[in-house]
């Protein structure tokens, strides 16, 4: 299937790697014009090169999503280049490991919240007026199963991702009637640089895969497919929802 996003303009934060990169490539293959937004310029250039092998209508813009002036410029640059904005994918995020709550460094709390929650808020804030001018749109926020279940290895990350789920719901209550659908995906463990890095050893991810009901962890492309669905008109009656995309790992009974 192709052209599921034909003539749509999409902006993907965190587009340089992992789920964001897979989304950029998927969107480019479905006829979208895509802006890759990321603070990692080296990886952005790699993504851009890969995506241009699929479609010429892909550009990149550097952005730190926690900085309002950069976020506003990111949206402005997208509209200047492609004329409109129809889809925003908020995939930028960071997982900083932390000890239990009483020992969490306030600086780490701020670092995680600033990127994962404030950054996502700022991106929505800048994108929504542009989407309204375009006649509506779709926002897809990337949360995590860490936002649904307790995640002991980083309380700030877990709380920030729970915040993303609720921001999705609250924002959808305000903008669905204006033609902007806002949804969220909560992926389980996905084979991304972030997951590999946070696992702190190659063996740890292999162990997770071995114990997964599907016998593997998620691929970025698995999540990109779900993002594509929410970005496209195929999900036109869905707003304010969170889709769990964990390959069924939540169905495994706890070991008591």
């Amino acid at each position, binding site marked *: 299937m192709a052209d599921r996003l034909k003539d749509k303009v999409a902006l993907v934060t965190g587009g340089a790697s992992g789920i964001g990169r897979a989304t950029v490539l998927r969107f480019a293959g479905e006829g979208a014009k895509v802006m890759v937004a990321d603070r990692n310029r080296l990886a952005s250039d790699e993504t851009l090169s890969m995506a241009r092998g699929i479609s010429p209508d892909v550009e990149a813009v550097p952005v730190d999503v926690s900085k309002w002036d950069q976020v506003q410029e990111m949206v402005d640059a997208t509209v200047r280049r492609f004329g409109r904005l129809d889809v925003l994918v908020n995939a930028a995020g960071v997982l900083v490991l932390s000890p239990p709550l009483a020992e969490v460094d306030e600086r780490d709390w701020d670092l995680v919240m600033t990127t994962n929650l404030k950054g996502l808020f700022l991106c929505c804030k800048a994108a929504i007026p542009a989407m309204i001018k375009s006649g509506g749109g779709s926002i897809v926020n990337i949360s995590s199963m860490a936002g649904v279940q307790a995640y002991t290895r980083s309380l700030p990350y877990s709380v920030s991702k729970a915040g993303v789920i609720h921001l999705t719901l609250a924002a959808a209550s305000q903008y669905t009637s204006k033609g902007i659908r806002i949804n969220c995906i909560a992926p389980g463990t996905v084979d991304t640089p972030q997951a*590999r890095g*946070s696992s702190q050893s190659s063996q740890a991810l292999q162990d997770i895969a071995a114990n997964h009901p599907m016998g593997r962890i998620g691929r970025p492309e698995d999540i990109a497919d779900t993002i594509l669905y929410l970005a496209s008109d195929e999900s036109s009656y869905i707003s304010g929802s969170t889709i769990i995309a964990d390959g069924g790992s939540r169905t495994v009974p706890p070991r008591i």
Partner: protein
Amino acid sequence: MDKLIEITKRAVEDYGFRQIAQWSPEDLVVQWQLSSREAEVLKGPIKDELGQLPVPVEPRDYSAVEGRLADIIKKALS
């Protein structure tokens, strides 16, 4: 110097923290109240070195990698 060594240690062991050190170093400069010289080292040779590290750095390699980065910091700030 000690603060910068602590930052690099965490950047070796925690990939999320490493990404911040590489791509939003100003946030760490402010949070950790680094001197202007320490900030230069973080945004210069340390950033370059962090970009060369594997993902993840295996625990058995922490000591060697962190020692090498500490030597770079000591040399740059001496």
